């Protein structure tokens, strides 16, 4: 799964820890999602959508090889 987290976070000039604070998760978790090592579950995906004020489908998209 591809995501736009890094881009959206950078646009707001937030560090990974700032975003992790808003999501109430570990900084490592934010890093793992940004680098594609972890695909978040639905509750966290909805929280991300709420934090960035975007729908989930605007944050995540399937990899080219899985679409």
């Amino acid at each position, binding site marked *: 799964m591809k995501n736009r987290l890094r881009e959206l976070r*950078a646009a707001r*000039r*937030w*560090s*990974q*820890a*700032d975003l*992790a*604070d808003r999501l*109430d*998760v*570990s*900084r*490592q*978790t*934010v*890093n*793992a*999602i940004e*680098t594609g*090592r*972890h695909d*978040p*579950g639905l509750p*966290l995906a909805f929280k991300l959508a709420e934090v960035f004020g975007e729908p989930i489908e605007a944050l995540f998209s399937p990899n080219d090889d899985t679409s």
Partner: protein
Amino acid sequence: MTEDENERPSRSDRRRNRAALSDALPAVIVLVVLQAGVEIIDPEGTANTIWSLLPLLPALWLVWAQGRNLGRADEFQRILQLEAMAIGFGATMVLALTGGLLDAADLGDPRQSLQITFIGGLLSWLAALAVKGRAAG
């Protein structure tokens, strides 16, 4: 935003670490004190059995603390912890089997094998957690 800011732990990290420490530290202290007491004081009969098994209480306390730590973890941290525990469990099984095979062949000392199994399993678990944590950034 600097690299240092990206390395800073989140509030959730700090809260979780503090809670884990306050859950486990008293148990570790009690365990060390009781273990030292078991080595020094050596009662007779039934009292000896009870006294010898007393360090199990703080050990069970540590199991409870680990369960709470797992419950507090977010979804990714929980995966990391469970994977590390699986590696520790696998290492413990292999070491226990090795000890059992050596014992069956009348080689080695069973008490020593048990200690190696316990310490080896614990170290494998902690090493796996450290390596996976580092790899996760």
